[in-house]
């Protein structure tokens, strides 16, 4: 008897809570008026994430309800883990502290690095910007098409930073396609890697789309490099298989696979590519909020994202600064982001084994 009342009591509470939340979303608009939103970038100033965060600053100020003051602060160190740990301990569920970061924060979380104190999958999403990637090879490899690449026999040398970092989706795409590429890891950044490629020290490389368009595209035009494929972008079902809107001429990894092998890619390699590709590319730049942030605040960010995507100034300047992608809204992406942050045990185990055996990563 008592049990029954308790149950119905709590479910009644849940119903009224839901009604309240629903009503909130429908009527009350959260306003940031007079507030300051601190955007924490867990990297040193001047990097790609910092540039993107500062680029978004004024658009968020313009389009968030109540026109808050948005300030970017840098908390570098620990390969972004320090800044994310700080966020975990200090953010409040009021939407006024935002962690704006990349797969450098997500990968150690997924792989279970011991220094990680943050629970990324529990956090809410505020907004995001996708990254795109283009894989290209030197013309002197004789490779002219993606198919040549898959069947290449000549020595292919890829320069990277670290296997468990932003190189991971590209390295996984080589696994999926079964290309025999030797990787040399340990470069300090994608810029020095590009220089090593231009010097002919390596002959396979990938760059993120803004850099590809400003720095590499001209060498593809003059025939010294051959662009092969993109990492792909999200289709409407949350699969990383669509063409990259920033470089629509190039096929995605998925298309290359289907083209060459005549079937859909599958298996644990492909699942791993999907999860890590999503974290590095589709959700490459993501702003996180405190786990208990109420829906009305998340929705306020979603509304701002919708307005920013229609701002002609954002569309024009975004072409160069962030590759011309539209911002990602939490309404569309939060669930898929959480799923990517929590891959199956099979995928996790595959990744850990691959990194340990092939790339000498010690966990």
């Amino acid at each position: 008897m008592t049990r029954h009342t308790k149950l119905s009591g709590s479910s009644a509470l849940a119903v009224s809570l839901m009604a309240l939340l629903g009503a909130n979303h429908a009527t009350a608009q959260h306003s940031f008026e007079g507030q300051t939103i601190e955007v924490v970038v867990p990297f040193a100033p001047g990097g790609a994430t910092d540039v993107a965060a500062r680029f978004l600053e004024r658009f968020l100020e313009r389009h968030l309800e109540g026109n808050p003051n948005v300030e970017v602060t840098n908390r570098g160190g620990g390969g972004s883990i320090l800044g994310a740990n700080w966020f975990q301990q200090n953010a409040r569920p009021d939407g006024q502290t935002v962690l704006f970061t990349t797969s450098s924060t997500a990968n150690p979380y997924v792989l279970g690095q011991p220094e990680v104190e943050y629970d990324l999958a529990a956090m809410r999403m505020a907004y995001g910007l996708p990254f795109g990637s283009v894989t290209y090879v030197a013309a002197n490899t004789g490779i002219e098409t993606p198919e040549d690449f898959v069947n290449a026999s000549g020595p292919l040398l890829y320069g990277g930073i670290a296997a468990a970092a932003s190189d991971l989706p590209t390295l996984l795409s080589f696994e999926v396609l079964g290309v025999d590429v030797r990787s040399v890891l340990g470069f300090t950044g994608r810029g020095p890697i590009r220089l090593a490629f231009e010097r002919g020290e390596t002959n396979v490389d990938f760059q993120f789309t803004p850099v590809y368009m400003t720095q590499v595209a001209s060498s593809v035009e003059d025939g010294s490099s051959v662009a092969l494929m993109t990492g792909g972008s999200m289709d409407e079902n949350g699969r990383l298989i669509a063409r990259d809107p920033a470089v629509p001429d190039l096929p995605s990894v998925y298309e290359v696979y289907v083209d060459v092998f005549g079937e859909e890619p599958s298996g644990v390699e492909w699942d791993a590519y999907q999860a890590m590709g999503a974290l590095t590319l589709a959700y490459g730049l993501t702003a996180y909020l405190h786990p208990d942030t109420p829906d009305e605040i998340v929705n306020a960010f979603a509304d701002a994202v919708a307005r920013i995507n229609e701002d002609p100034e954002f569309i024009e300047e975004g072409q160069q600064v962030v590759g011309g992608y539209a911002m990602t809204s939490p309404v569309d992406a939060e669930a898929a982001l959480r799923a990517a942050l929590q891959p199956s045990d099979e995928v996790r185990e595959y990744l850990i084994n691959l990194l340990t055996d092939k790339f000498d990563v010690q966990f």
Partner: protein
Amino acid sequence: MDNALAALSELFEPLRLFALIMGVLAGMVFGMLPGLGGVAAVSIMLPFIFLFDSYAGLALLLGAISVVYTSDTITSVLLGAPGSPASAPTAIEGHAMARRGEAATALGLGFLASMTGGLIGAMTLALAIPVAGPIVLALGTPELLMFALIGLYFASSMIGRDLAVGLAAGCLGLLIGTIGPAPAAANFRFTFGQAYLLDGLSLTIVALGLFAVPEIISMLSGGGGISSKRQVVSNWSSGFVEFWKSRWLIIRSAFIGTFGGFVPAVGANASTWVAYGHAMSSTKDKSRFGKGEPRGVAAAEGANNATVISDLVPTLLFSVPGGPAAAIFLGALFSFGFFPGPRMVTEEPVLLYLIVWSVALASIVGAAICFAITPLVAQLTRIRFALIAAPLMLVMVAGAYQATQSLGDISILLLLGVIGWIMKQAEWPRAPVLVGFVLATPVEQYFWLTTQIHGWSWLGRPGVLLIASFIIVPLIWRAASRWIAKRKAISPLSVSADADPDVSKPTGTTAARLAMSVIAVAIFGYALAEAMGFRANARLLPLLAIIPGLALAIFVVVREGIRLTRNVDQFHFEAKADYPIIALLIGYALGIALFGFQVATAVFLIFVLTRFAGLRLLGALAYATILFVGINGLFSLMRIAPPEGYLISNLF
């Protein structure tokens, strides 16, 4: 040429000149504050650039970048604490000159050398950008490796007389440099499970800890001013004379520095030491190096300013920043919609020349302002040191704390400070530690990249041979001239720098000597145990530091032990007066950890000012209030919140 003139007239818009001058002033201030070099100056200016148009915003940053290595000469010379890590040679030679009462000479020489370095850097920028592409592309990973090795070789010139101790110090630096991720295998080394150590230690904190903290400790306990002699810095003529005497050395150093700037990542720190080593090998009488040799100042200052400017060459040509300040500048270029790359030279020639003019103008204005303000700054060296030490300590804490904004920054600063203090007492040279630390990463990284990409064929590359000739040619030259001298039966006059009659070898030992050798054995011993668990390619460089380091450290322990038993009566604890100061600093750090920066700083200031600066309570309160407001202003300018205490944030 038209573009150059067009750029000049663009720059001479009043608002842009104003921005440039503001940048220069900010750069000067941050250059002078130990620990807050160019990176701090530029990142603090970053939010302000958007108040201006793109050219003015960039001028603001360039003004700051170009003068940091000019004004940090003041700190290095007067305090003996390097204003920025690449100025360590200036701190060693220049400060030794200041202690002899030659501060004016050292400063004048340093400013002029800096300015020359800046101008040559700007000239290179203007001339080299159209043609530098092939040069930068010719520098492959093997050449970068060779350049780092050369830096290490020249740094060995800093080892000093006691070979065992000097080499052990260098090994210690290399070992500290391997903390963090291994480049070849994703191993994290010596991180003790602390996220703080995952990126390795910050160069700023290592330099501040080893050099600046021990200076502050000694000078607080000494009670007097910085210099025992009165510093006369109104008469600059001796500085000009030294400058003119070293003019060719400065120009050569500036070119070494320029070349260093072309090499991303190795950059300023290696080239400063290469230039310093070059000064040493091109000077006949080497005995004054380490004890106040003007040529050491001339070479280092000529090189470091040229490097920071030519860092912009790879930045503008390839979007690959040459150094941390250039990285922030690149971010600013992106934000203004400029995308550096091979095409920028043809697409944005005016911007390019605007950068050149800004840098050149800032170098000249910066040097002029330095000359103007130095007499004022020199006055500071005569007042009681505690009055300056208190704010300096606060600035250093702030400078260290901005690295990652965690208490790890402050703990490491203090830990290295205590080790640096022991090394100073024990007469272990600290410069090799710094150089080993700086070059460990590039040496290891480029070694693995090079051998993986090129196998061993890299040793025959022309670029590698050319860079190696920097070491080999002087060696052959020296050997040949010695041989000729022998044949002529005239004994060489000056080659033997080792024989120094002034210093008699110590026969006994002291507490610090014993302590330092035991600490070194403990560090190397522990590192050896941990390194055995690493993967093979993560272990190589640490072992290259640990094995000789451990052997040398054990040798030194045994040697000091024998000295102790032979001359027990000579054993003593040196600088006992410093002990309370060390305890005070540890207490300050603990106070910050427990009660937060504000409370701990208030107590620290009042205590230091009344106890060591001889102020009455009222005066101390007034001065402490000013400093307190100032340091909080600095924190808010840097947009960081000062550390909160554990107790405060958990109990309230």
